[in-house]
């Protein structure tokens, strides 16, 4: 599919502080890409650079094959949804949604038709005559979304649009935005600091950290093959340990536990590298009789209903979080119990860029 956005070494510095280090990114038409990262990681900065409300310090921005780096914000034909809705308080809902069409001097009848169609898309045609302040937060954001798509902009930017809403409403709107994206084949660049939101909504996630793109990957890959310690730690629960490389794809985890055939391990023998194992990939057995296992002791047991989380501690003092499906036949894990851990080589994820891109 055609390329919608291309960033070429785009950079933003405010005096001494670099808000965004040189960044490259390409977004295809119809893609839903999410910028995920902690507060202050440069997500809003990147969005504002694309929107044109901030000028870059260096680099180029291409939209639909056109260099728009010098094009003012009002000529970029983009849509944007803000966290605080940014609806015009002096206009009715219908006037708000009509605003971009009025600017484009569309015929009256067409404006009326398009506004109603957009309001129906967000299930709010009945509030057309009201003022924004008479609506709930969720309704206001739906109106803002309707306003951002009514003029079919080539790209819609959303900066933490659900950040001000409570959890239930957030989930409902996540679903609706996702549905609109699929039905209307919009290209969306979405910003959030909520990893679940990013995982459920995106075609691809750009993980941001301290003004840099840490990793760009589809949600599944981002979760199962994080490239860096930051990525592994930011998404889900992870165990990050340091292991000695013994050969090609071979590592030693503990005295009695070695694995071979670890995928994507590029470090040379003798090196000590960080790797990640997800809590659900670890097998746990009582006692310590078995061959090729890691001996440990149960420190803590947290029963969560369907799953049980255990914290275990190995002889070397490393802590692992282990997640197990709860079974009624379980003898019941208890603190102080000796246990043995094991996992498959395919579940070991080498970090710090060692994973294949």
């Amino acid at each position: 599919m055609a390329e919608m956005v291309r960033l070429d070494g785009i950079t933003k510095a405010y005096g001494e502080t670099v808000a965004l280090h040189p960044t490259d990114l390409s977004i295809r038409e119809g893609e839903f890409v999410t910028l995920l990262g902690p507060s202050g990681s440069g997500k809003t900065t990147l969005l504002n650079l694309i929107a044109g409300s901030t000028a870059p310090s260096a680099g180029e921005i291409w939209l639909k094959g056109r260099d728009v780096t010098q094009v003012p914000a009002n000529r970029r034909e983009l849509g944007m949804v803000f966290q605080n809705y940014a609806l015009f308080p002096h206009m009715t809902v219908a006037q708000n949604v009509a605003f971009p069409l009025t600017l484009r001097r569309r015929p009256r009848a067409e404006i009326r038709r398009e506004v109603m169609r957009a309001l129906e898309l967000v299930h709010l045609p009945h509030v057309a005559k009201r003022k924004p302040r008479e609506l709930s937060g969720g309704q206001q954001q739906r109106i803002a979304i309707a306003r951002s798509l009514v003029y079919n902009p080539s790209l819609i930017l959303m900066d933490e649009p659900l950040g001000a809403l409570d959890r239930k409403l957030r989930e409902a709107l996540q679903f609706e935005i996702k549905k609109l994206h699929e039905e209307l084949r919009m290209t969306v660049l979405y910003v959030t600091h909520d990893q679940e939101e990013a995982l459920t909504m995106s075609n691809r996630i750009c993980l941001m950290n301290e003004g840099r793109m840490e990793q760009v990957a589809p949600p599944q890959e981002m979760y199962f093959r994080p490239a860096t310690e930051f990525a592994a730690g930011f998404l889900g629960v992870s165990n990050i340990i340091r292991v000695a490389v013994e050969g090609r794809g071979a590592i030693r985890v503990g005295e009695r536990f070695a694995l071979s055939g670890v995928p994507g391990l590029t470090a040379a023998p003798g090196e000590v590298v960080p790797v990640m194992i997800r809590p659900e990939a670890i097998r746990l057995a009582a006692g310590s009789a078995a061959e090729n296992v890691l001996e440990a002791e149960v420190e803590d047991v947290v029963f969560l209903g369907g799953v049980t989380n255990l914290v275990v501690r190995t002889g070397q003092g490393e802590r692992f979080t282990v997640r197990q499906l709860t079974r009624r036949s379980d003898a019941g894990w208890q603190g102080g119990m000796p246990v043995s851990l094991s996992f498959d080589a395919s579940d070991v994820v080498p970090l710090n860029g060692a994973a294949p891109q």
Partner: protein
Amino acid sequence: MARQTTIEERVPSAATRLIAWLGYAFLLMPSLVVLPMSFGTGTEFDFPPKSFSLDLYREYFSEPSWVASTLTSLQVAAASAALSLLIGGLAAYGIVRYQFRGKKLLTIFLLSPMLVPTIVVALALYLYLGIARATGTTWGLILCHAVVCVPYVIVTMMAGLRQVDRNLEIAATIMGASWFGVLTRVTIPLLRPTILASGLFAFLISFDEVVISFFVSGVRTQTLPVKMYSTIHWEISPVLAAVSSLLTILSLGICILVAALQKER
């Protein structure tokens, strides 16, 4: 929080309230005396009036020189309010919305007529109009009043503009609005109460202004306050009570209107 606010601290004591009311009473006294006097009769001020009549008001409205100076004042106040809204509004917009070198200095310069003693401003304007050969002209008076009104407009408009959410302007721009489109479709409509309030204030300042007008107005451009002032000098006519009452009511009306506008926001 450094410390807890106790009930005693929030509710003013009886003594404080008494002082406050005495202060109000002192400030209100002249108006309260003048109002009953304006309904008196005859050729002398008398308080309390012995009988009630509208004679003084009738006299005011039938005397051509009073009517002429009132019209001059209204005309000058309306024009200088409009002019200072334009100048002050643009200045406030530039100061609040843009970063540039010398911004602090420019702000102080623009507000300086508010900081310099009125008599100094009056003398300066008198000399200036003399050079420009504009002494005694209506437009000269309008310009002079605008000089005094502009700082007030700037201060209120700056406060109003800071209240306007930048994101609304950015949102409008991204949807395709030009700078002018944002200004006319978003910023100005949102500022409407502020614009009206500062316009009314400017009108009132100009309408009440006496020191500068005294220096620069001529025989044919005598404003109402100047006419009142010279009346005191030549003949202490009780018509003044009626004029003062009307002025007080006008000021009160405008203040109530401004307060209502503030509430609307």
